[in-house]
């Protein structure tokens, strides 16, 4: 009963941590989607140098650990650019967006390339520009196919927010750490946040299945 009371007492703190986790994850995934789409379109461009820009981006991010990226930008890059007063939350969102964005580039590339090239030709033959054909014809079909892969990346990135505890963002993991630092109940509090993460991911997975089914019915 003691344990239960401890967790109940800490629940306002944990909820604040959860709120922070959700906020960071939501904003990061939003920016990551924009980055992924933008560099994904560069990646399938006919111009080699545009492709190269996207390839270099993806290669650097995929080739280095997220943990290193987080501390490199927070302790290395941001202080150089903005001085000492770097806001951890902004830095965290920045790095996570950059990271998830790179993985989404490959998802967008694969999705776009999976659409029959006759679709692009048909669009162009009618008189659409390359961009219009992408927007009205290719992407609506491609995104439908990409949903499972995108959701998978979203799940990974949501869990990756826990790494941001390192730079002192008061998200769920950081909150649990500060609590058990005082009462030494590491098992109880790490167990609790594990359950919270699981529920969060479960809800997202359920939503993605619902979305897939809805789109398939169309």
């Amino acid at each position, binding site marked *: 009963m003691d344990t239960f009371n401890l967790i109940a007492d800490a629940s306002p703190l944990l909820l604040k941590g959860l709120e922070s986790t959700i906020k960071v994850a939501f904003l990061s995934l939003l920016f990551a989607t924009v980055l992924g789409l933008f560099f994904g379109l560069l990646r399938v461009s006919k111009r080699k140098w545009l492709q190269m820009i996207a390839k270099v981006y993806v290669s650097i991010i995929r080739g280095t650990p997220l943990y290193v990226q987080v501390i490199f930008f927070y302790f290395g890059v941001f202080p150089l650019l903005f001085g000492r007063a770097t806001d951890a939350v902004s830095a965290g969102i920045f790095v996570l967006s950059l990271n998830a964005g790179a993985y989404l580039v490959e998802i967008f590339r694969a999705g776009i390339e999976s659409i*029959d090239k*006759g*679709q692009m*030709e*048909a*669009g*162009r*033959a*009618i*008189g*659409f*520009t390359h961009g*219009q054909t992408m927007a*009205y*014809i290719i992407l*609506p*079909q491609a995104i*439908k196919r990409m949903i499972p892969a995108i959701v998978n990346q979203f799940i990974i990135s949501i869990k990756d927010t826990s790494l941001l505890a390192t730079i002192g963002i008061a998200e769920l993991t950081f909150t649990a750490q500060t609590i058990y630092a005082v009462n030494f109940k590491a098992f109880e509090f790490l167990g609790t946040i594990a359950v919270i993460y699981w529920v969060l991911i479960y809800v997202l997975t359920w939503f993605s299945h619902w979305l897939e089914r809805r789109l398939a019915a*169309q």
Partner: protein
Amino acid sequence: MIQVKQLAKSFGNLHVLKNINAHIKRKEVVCVIGPSGSGKSTFLRCLNLLEEPTAGEIIIDGINIMDKGTNINTLRQKAGMVFQQFNLFPHKTALENITLGLIKIKKYNTATAVEKGKALLAKVGLLEKADVYPRNLSGGQQQRVAIARALAMEPEIMLFDEPTSALDPEMVGEVLQVMKDLAQEGMTMVIVTHEMGFAREVADRILFMDQGFVVEEGTPEQLFFHTQQERTREFLNKVL
């Protein structure tokens, strides 16, 4: 209307079109025949720049379409294209396939676009299929929708790239009928086809292509019954 001069197209070391000269007059129906790999489809696809020619000139209504200044998208609206594999947009209904270009390119309002789309569906005999998605249409029906989609942009010329080659035999007739009607209305048409009977009946002129050249051209009568070139005769003997 279309003047093609010394057109050449290579894919790397593969010279698909070597030296094509052709002239297509307004309201003329020209069929292009020849063995596979002869460059027929590539020639057709050069006419709306789906393939970029390596050399030569293509002049449509006095404008050299290979000039850098030519607006490719405006040009393509003038030339409707029908593909072997239909290439309908699978996420759009038959009607939406037709109205998409009208709404987004020609800036029609939805009501006008729908009205025009339905009129075109009626023209190809598929008005009752307006709200059906392509996957629920037969091949012949899909190709008729594709023709209606191309017609929606009010092209001055229609390009057909083996429009019946992917169809089950019993569906070839309905597509050819729509094309015959178009020809009778005076549409300028260039048709790459293996349907010799259709070519003989509908074409004003037939081009026989082989190995990247136009080997012989003439009226169906001349080409089929007064064949000049040995290569043409060989081909016709095989397919007729």
